[in-house]
């Protein structure tokens, strides 16, 4: 039965009419012939889209299908290879659009002025709840967030699926490699916007934090430029400003060495040496900042699953410019360090505790202490800040190294973490 309708017809399907004319059992033989053809043809690979025979499976770990450019798995953040500046300006577009709401970020603030800076301080994506819809990449006006092609993310550690900025950062060259044409489309606009943003970012804010050397180089560059610019200027500038102008290389190195020493010391003993609170702080603000950073780093080391404490916010508070503040900061740092150390003390008692946590804590504690100490020593804000950053990096690295290498329970694992931290600190 067929009925003509507009642009087509209604067809009644035929119900196996041909069978009646044939020998019984022929339908079965037909099916067997089809299967035989597949069996015989299966000793070669499937040739492509127009081939319906041949083995069409991939031998996965060895053979991998080529992923198309548009492939999207998990979001990543891009940073510029040359300047190492992140493209993200923390405009919160992605956070707002994200359907399962797994993107969280805080905006960076200029510690000097407390004003927001078009850069992101911390950026967290919960990969475990992300549904890979790609909206974040779609809405990002700065093309800072893109979808990665990496799909082998399975892990036994659920915590690792909460991903922070350091793990999210990828260079632009990486993205260019996986999606050349898609990057080429947006490239010019994105780079232009980035140049504009860099201008508004003071100091090293907005640089990919996992590129410590680049940051240091940038530091030196900035300082040199500043020194050159202010050398002829009158020394009658504001005292805080004036201090900033003094030659910085030495101070920075000193801070680094001190941090390294402190880390080493922390490696030797469980109870980290208390930062001498009475040491004369030259700059309260710097010290306070350093202390907070150290505290954050310590906290992170102490409890890796805790949500990241944002460094920018407290740093942005109006700083009380007196000695008391410095002392307070130092005490805070000390407490944080002690807490971290206690965490490592408690470990041997609790045998059931997972190995990574106590292992990660002590080096972080050591590094934190070093940061606290370093904060007291240099007579300069910038140097202190630098030292704090270094210490923080060192602490984080040590935490990572410690969790990999350290023996699980005893306090001796500090030894394995400590040298690593000190090495890193010295290197930087």
């Amino acid at each position, binding site marked *: *039965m067929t009925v003509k309708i507009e642009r087509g017809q209604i067809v009644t399907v035929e*119900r*196996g*009419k041909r069978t009646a004319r044939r020998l019984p059992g022929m339908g079965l033989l037909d099916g067997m012939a089809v299967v035989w053809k597949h069996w015989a043809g299966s000793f070669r690979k499937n040739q492509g889209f127009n081939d319906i025979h041949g083995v069409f499976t991939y031998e996965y770990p060895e053979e991998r299908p080529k992923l198309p450019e548009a492939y999207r798995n998990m979001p990543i953040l891009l940073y510029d290879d040359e300047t190492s500046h992140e493209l993200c300006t923390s405009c919160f577009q992605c956070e707002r659009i994200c359907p399962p709401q797994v993107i969280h970020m805080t905006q960076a603030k200029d510690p000097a002025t407390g004003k927001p800076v078009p850069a992101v301080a911390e950026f967290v994506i919960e990969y475990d709840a992300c549904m890979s819809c790609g909206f974040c990449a779609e809405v990002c006006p700065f093309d800072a967030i893109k979808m990665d092609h990496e799909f082998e993310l399975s892990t036994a550690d659920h915590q690792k699926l909460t991903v922070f900025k350091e793990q999210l950062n990828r260079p632009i060259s990486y993205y260019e490699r996986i999606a050349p044409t898609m990057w080429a489309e947006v490239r010019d606009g994105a780079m232009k916007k980035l140049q504009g943003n860099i201008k508004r970012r003071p100091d090293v804010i907005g640089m990919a934090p996992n590129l410590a050397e680049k940051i240091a180089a940038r530091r030196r560059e900035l300082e040199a430029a500043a020194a050159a610019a202010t050398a002829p200027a009158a020394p009658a500038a504001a005292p805080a400003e004036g201090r900033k102008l003094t030659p910085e290389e030495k101070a920075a190195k000193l801070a680094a060495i001190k941090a390294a020493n402190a880390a080493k010391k922390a490696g030797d003993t469980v109870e980290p040496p208390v930062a001498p609170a009475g040491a004369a702080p030259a700059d309260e603000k710097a010290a306070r900042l350093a202390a907070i950073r150290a505290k954050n780093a310590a906290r992170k080391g102490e409890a890796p699953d805790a949500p990241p404490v944002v460094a920018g916010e407290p740093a942005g508070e109006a700083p009380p410019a007196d000695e008391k503040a410095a002392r307070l900061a130092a005490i805070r740092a000390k407490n944080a360090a002690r807490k971290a150390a206690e965490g490592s003390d408690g470990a041997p008692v609790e045998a059931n505790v997972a190995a990574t946590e106590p292992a990660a804590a002590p080096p972080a504690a050591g590094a934190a202490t070093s940061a606290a100490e370093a904060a007291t020593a240099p007579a300069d804000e910038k140097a202190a800040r630098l030292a704090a950053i270094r210490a923080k990096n060192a602490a984080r690295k040590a935490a990572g190294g410690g969790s990999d290498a350290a023996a699980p329970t005893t306090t001796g694992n500090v030894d394995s973490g400590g040298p690593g931290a000190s090495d890193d600190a010295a290197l930087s």
Partner: protein
Amino acid sequence: MATVIQIIFGLIAALIVGAAVMVVTVRNVIHAALWLIACFFGVGALYLLLEAEFLAVVQVLVYVGAISILILFAIMLTRQVTGEGVRQLVGGWRLWLTAAISALLFAVAIVPTVISHSWNVPAPPAPPGTPEPLAGVAELGRAFVYEFLLQFQVAGVLLTVALIGAIVIAFEERARRRRVLTLAEEHELRKRLAHPPPVEAPAGEPAPAPRATPISEGEVQQ
């Protein structure tokens, strides 16, 4: 060699008698049926020992492969009464009476008779190693088609009659059978009730397809 055979015979005899005792005493009928299978096996083994291979194989084929399965199926079909708690043996004096009858029959009639009668057992051939001329399958077949032809035919008729009889007895009449109407049948019936009797295909209904009308379906329990 003789000792080995005696030991084997003892084992088989123990299996037969033990399993038989279990058959009549265990409460669970399913277990009884399983013990019955064990008993049949023992009998089959005894046939092998008596060098009647064909009979042994037939014993396994018929008793184990067919009759015991039939019994198990019957138990499953009448499943409500197989519970452990149900008393399986007759109670009180009747049980003792039957036990006494069986024991007396065995102890007073069978055993003395068997022992006291002098059986005319032919002497075994002189050299113990030579095989005795035993009748085999070929002789059996020949016996069936020459000597015992009538009996053979009668047995065949008996089996056929039993087959038909079993079917007739267990068969349900069509009208008494439980039938569950399928959706299509119900719909069709409703339609016919709505448009009273002999209406050939109601208007608007498409002609039924050659092999499957809307009311045909292979599923109704016949």
